[in-house]
């Protein structure tokens, strides 16, 4: 069952996991250029999967009040406001007396505050809240408010351009899934559709999958003790239905289907956007040669991945596992040799 690319490189994950007659690999293509930030995906996911709510949280940093993917939020709509145009469009806010959705100071305070999501680590505070302030006020933000007249930062009246980036984040269902590789109970498994699912009756809450994930997707539910994440609606896709989030998406920003087909469709979409002048459009997670062997859920983004909270170049940690075991073996041999040397010398 262990092939040459089992730990790294392009691979058909379902076949590698032992499904000789696996159906087509299924996945999501999330086209953020048409996302309107309605959060229907978040709600539909919670409803269908009976994910607990966390009450009314207002994070205060933007219109995003979810913060991150957690054990209790398997879809998360990121919201970014930038003082720049989308492609060559002009903003509807040109010369109108509008301000950003939050001030830089409010964003800094919001991002620096711990949120109680009922999960661990959930949505921890930013180490440097200044970077949230910078995010809310734009790239020329010179420090904390007050150090520049408002007109110069473009954060008050007379702003010229603004664009909103919205992105519905989800588990990536990696080709090489670190969470699955490191799970010591076999609770995490590869489905016949190539997706990665946690079996809740097996998980014993060891927490190893949580820091193993290069995207920060998996999280532990407090009180319950187990790890939870998106299942790509394994119960729905098994009977030919569309996952709840994709079904609920009103703009087809979330598209569900066979991964090969989605990749082709995404390629056409990005070419169309480039032709239309949106030169910053790019695909993320579509490449089978990337650090995780390509994502089962990939994205079309309009800025650098880290702006949306995605790692710029994730690599599955188990790529280096053979080297790690070899280094540990060397250290173990050194240890045994040190004991022999200490005892073989005759003591006085």
């Amino acid at each position: 069952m262990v092939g040459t690319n089992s730990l790294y490189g392009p691979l058909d994950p379902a076949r590698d996991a032992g499904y000789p007659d696996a159906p087509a690999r299924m996945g999501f293509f999330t086209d953020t250029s048409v996302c309107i930030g309605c959060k229907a995906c978040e709600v539909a996911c919670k409803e269908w999967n009976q994910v607990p709510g966390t009450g009314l949280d207002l994070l205060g940093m933007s219109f995003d009040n979810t913060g991150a993917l957690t054990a209790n939020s398997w879809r998360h709509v990121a919201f970014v406001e930038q003082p720049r145009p989308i492609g060559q469009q002009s903003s509807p806010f040109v010369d109108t007396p509008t301000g950003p959705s939050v001030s830089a100071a409010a964003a800094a305070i919001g991002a620096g505050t711990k949120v109680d999501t009922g999960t661990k680590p959930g949505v921890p505070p930013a180490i440097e809240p200044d970077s949230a302030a910078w995010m809310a006020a734009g790239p020329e933000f010179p420090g904390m408010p007050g150090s520049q007249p408002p007109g110069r930062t473009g954060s008050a009246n007379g702003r010229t351009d603004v664009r909103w980036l919205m992105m519905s984040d989800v588990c990536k269902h990696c080709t090489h899934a670190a969470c699955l590789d490191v799970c010591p109970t076999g609770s995490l498994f590869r489905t016949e559709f190539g997706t990665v699912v946690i079996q809740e009756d097996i998980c014993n809450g060891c927490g190893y999958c949580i820091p193993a994930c290069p995207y920060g997707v998996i999280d532990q539910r407090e009180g319950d003790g187990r790890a939870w994440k998106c299942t790509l609606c394994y119960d729905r896709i098994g009977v030919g239905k569309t996952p709840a989030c994709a079904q609920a998406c009103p703009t087809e920003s979330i598209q569900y289907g066979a991964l090969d087909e989605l990749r082709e469709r995404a390629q056409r979409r990005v070419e169309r956007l480039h032709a239309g002048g949106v030169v910053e459009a790019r695909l993320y997670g579509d490449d089978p040669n990337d650090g995780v062997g390509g994502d089962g859920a990939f994205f079309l983004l309009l800025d650098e991945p880290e702006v949306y909270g995605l790692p710029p170049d994730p690599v599955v940690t188990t790529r280096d596992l053979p080297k790690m075991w070899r280094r540990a073996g060397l250290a173990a041999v050194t240890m045994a040799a040190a004991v022999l040397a200490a005892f073989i010398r005759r003591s006085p």
Partner: protein
Amino acid sequence: MSERSERTIWLSSAAGKGRRGHDGRGEGGGEQATVPSAEFRSYYGRPIIKAPVWRREIPSYLFTGGLAAGAALLAAAADLTGRPALRRAGRLTALGAIGVSGYFLINDLGRPARFHHMLRVAKPTSPMSMGTWVVAGFGSAAGVAAVSEFASRLPGRDALGLARQGLPLAGRVAGFAAAGLAPALATYTAVLLADTAVPSWHEAYAHLPHVFAGSALASGAGVGLIAAPLAESGPARRLAVAGAALDLAGSHRLESRLGLLSEPYRVGRAGKLLRAGRILSVTGMLGALLGRRSRLASALSGIALLAASVATRFGIYEGGVASARDPKYTVTPQRQRREQAAVRVDHQERHVGSTSSSAP
């Protein structure tokens, strides 16, 4: 010194990015210079990866597991070379430490009652699964070895008399079995930490096993220095020096060879713990060497070595957690890697372009 230069390099690349991406907005001159150091990009400064949710039990286990391994090795070697007091101290410590380890490991689970689910599979890709089997095997062997120390207290007749006769040999075999598993027990935990997306753990995979091996030897030797009489503690002294030296050398590489990812090991609580560990290691080493005629000095240096191991394990643990919580450590190295890869592809394309154009 190096912290500063890393920050500067990074800022200058960010400034370049700003100029390209924002159409000359950054050309204002003075503004770039006043950009706060936090101006690197992540989603509102929130972490990108999730930090481990393990509690204090896990760094504590890193210490107790290492201690059990070091003590079992010491006990087996003392058994072979006829040092009964050293052997006894080693065997009892090994059982005590692995017992406490088991408690820590089970108690830290989100669902402790399901700890036996760990025994459903044996997965080489999961260091935790491999570790479960090593701990289970080591624990059983260490248990028999420790119990055999009490064989002489059993009555000399009936079934117990039989046990009294058989136990010393069984203890000997079990002691060697435990010692055989001990190097694996002491070093697999390094792979456990490194096999995560936590930047300062993952990138340290080449150095962590040596730190953990050295720390385990030094703590095991520390028990020998505390418990064994001066006549038997010679090898424990040499082992203490070797272990502490291995630990110090490995920790130094952690703190200096990982570039930006060494920073979490030098600053904050992790930095303090690792500095304390270093001072205690050196103290224990010197005490072990110089205090060979004093039982008190030996015992004190043994205590210093144990404390050094605790401080080092918690320091490495905290350093990794700090690197996971700050998105700077996730984003910056990945960006650099991506930019270098882009440069490489660019060069290759240019090379291919020039050769094909020179062809007729």
